[in-house]
């Protein structure tokens, strides 16, 4: 692995903007000189970010938040509209080929493999594309296959692999250039819980080898468990940045209480009473039933008074769940929306 100087950040993004044109303009509209009704959508909106060498950095956000677009700019697949992005100290616009030589990226799913080739043949092909010296190919591939526990099945066609094995092979492919920086876009999507768990363990091991890992995810538990630092991103902007513990402290609550109550036809009185007792981060009301997510310092103190409040307005609490603060609550507190919406 080619080392990165600890002074040079693995990734440095300054005022990054990526705009896409949305909508269509047909040939007929062009010929008729009809007004152009396409919209400009800012997928990445003035993003500033610095990922230090050696850390596992997570970009967390809902679908469409701009995570993948950011990663694709860093991987030199997309040109930024404005701003600057540097990977391993190299500018993505000026030195894309040098970046590709030193970057391991997992951006596409299991279909990006050649299913009619064996696992080993897939890696041999990509080793050539990464310009790996011929004399190193065999040994390097054998070592990576061993590390990914694929040696036994290396000469089977990929079409006979399980989803977890394909994901491991994709990770193996990204490791071919022995990259100091690994970019993983939603690495555990589509994996069963056990395979996802094993992949997370591998990511931690790769980090311990001295690699920087930059990953996107919309699984808050994954980000919480894996990442040294997290940027929460929404509408192309960073809304929070810090260690998981720092981010959770921004919620100003020690515990989260989720309530379900039958409120009948009462007109918001229960919600008003709850709001006077603690922070109601979110509530939904459907057909006389209300669900609420409440941030409080102590569930032990809050829950009894919540029952009293319900009784006072003729509502009935049917279910109470007390959970620790998660990154989901951080996102909720910052945006008023859930990550999975």
């Amino acid at each position, binding site marked *: 692995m080619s080392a990165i100087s600890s002074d040079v950040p693995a990734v440095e993004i300054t005022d990054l903007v990526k705009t896409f044109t949305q909508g269509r303009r047909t040939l007929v509209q062009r010929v008729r000189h009809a007004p152009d009704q396409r919209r400009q959508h800012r997928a990445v909106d003035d993003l500033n970010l610095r990922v230090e060498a050696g850390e596992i950095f997570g970009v967390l956000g809902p679908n469409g938040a701009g995570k993948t677009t950011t990663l694709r700019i860093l991987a030199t*697949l997309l040109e930024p509209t404005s701003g600057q992005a540097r990977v391993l100290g190299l500018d993505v616009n000026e030195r894309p080929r040098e970046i590709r030589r030193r970057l391991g990226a997992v951006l596409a799913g299991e279909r990006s493999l050649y299913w009619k080739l064996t696992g080993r*043949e897939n890696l041999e092909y990509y080793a050539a*594309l990464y310009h790996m010296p011929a004399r190193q190919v065999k040994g390097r591939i054998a070592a990576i296959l061993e590390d990914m526990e694929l040696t036994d099945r290396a000469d089977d066609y990929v079409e006979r692999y399980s989803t977890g094995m394909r994901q491991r092979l994709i990770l193996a492919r990204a490791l071919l250039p022995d990259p100091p920086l690994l970019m993983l876009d939603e690495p555990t999507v589509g994996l069963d819980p056990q395979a996802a768990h094993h992949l997370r363990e591998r990511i931690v091991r790769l980090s311990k080898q001295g690699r920087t890992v930059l990953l996107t995810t919309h699984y808050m538990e994954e980000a919480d468990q894996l990442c040294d630092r997290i940027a929460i991103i929404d509408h192309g902007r960073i809304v929070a940045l810090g260690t998981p513990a720092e981010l959770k402290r921004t919620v100003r609550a020690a515990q989260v209480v989720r309530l379900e109550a039958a409120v009948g036809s009462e007109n918001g009185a229960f919600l008003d009473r709850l709001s006077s007792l603690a922070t109601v981060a979110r509530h939904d009301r459907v057909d006389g039933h209300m669900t609420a997510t409440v941030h409080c310092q102590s569930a032990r103190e809050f829950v009894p008074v919540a029952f009293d409040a319900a009784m006072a307005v003729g509502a009935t609490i049917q279910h109470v769940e007390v959970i620790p603060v998660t990154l989901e609550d951080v996102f909720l507190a910052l945006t008023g929306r859930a990550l999975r919406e």
Partner: protein
Amino acid sequence: MLAADLRAFYAAALKEWRIMRRYPTVFIGILFWPLILPGVYVLQANGFGAGDGQALHAFAARTGTLQVAGFLYVGGAIYMWLSVVLWGPGSALREEQTRGSLEQQFLTPVSRLVLLFGSAPAHLVQAFWMFLVIGIVLGTLFHVPIGAGTAVRALVVIAISVPAFLGLGALFAALVLRFKEVNGTVQLLRGVFQVLCGVTFPIVVLPLWAQAIAVTLPPTHVIADIRSVVLSGASLPSLAPDLLVLTGLSALMCVMAALVFQRCERDSRRNGALGQY
């Protein structure tokens, strides 16, 4: 860097070849079509003018040969090669795009030309297999004398034509990257080439404006030169001027393909179209 890219080119060709040979029915199809497709035109020609000396002499006056079957099978062979060239690299690139592996390859430092031309040698194997079938058919069924010397000269012409066809295929493949559709465009182009390049008839029967376009198309020269070699025993020096034109057109096609591909890649990096299908 060049050596590394050449190794990558070999790896790309090997990858394509391995995938191709793991679908063996492709080769059965190639055994069948070279026999049937020109055969239909031979039967048609027999139906219209067999045994009629006047018709045969008119044909010979326009083509320089009395070998109707040979004329049609050579045209058919080049037409099928053209089809392989148009379907092959374009479809391969398109498949890479829909699979997501194209983007993955763009993440590597390899020259983009490797991705553009890498699948071509495997398709060339397909084409040579087809030429072999047609050569056997001409020699055994139609008694066209193809000796070792003729075969070598024909192979030399084919070898000189390879860059032109490579360029044509790559140019088309580059456009596929932009327009994301293969079938309709292949059908259109095949139709145009079939009419303008004299696949089943001598181009002298075309209007003058169409003949003017025909001479700018590499397949026209390839068909004419191979017919001269196989049916009239022409020597290579006698074909030199035409082969020179063909070489020029080849270079032009390859450069155009590289430029179009470069442009498409740049546009894709701007609008994110590389991963879209």
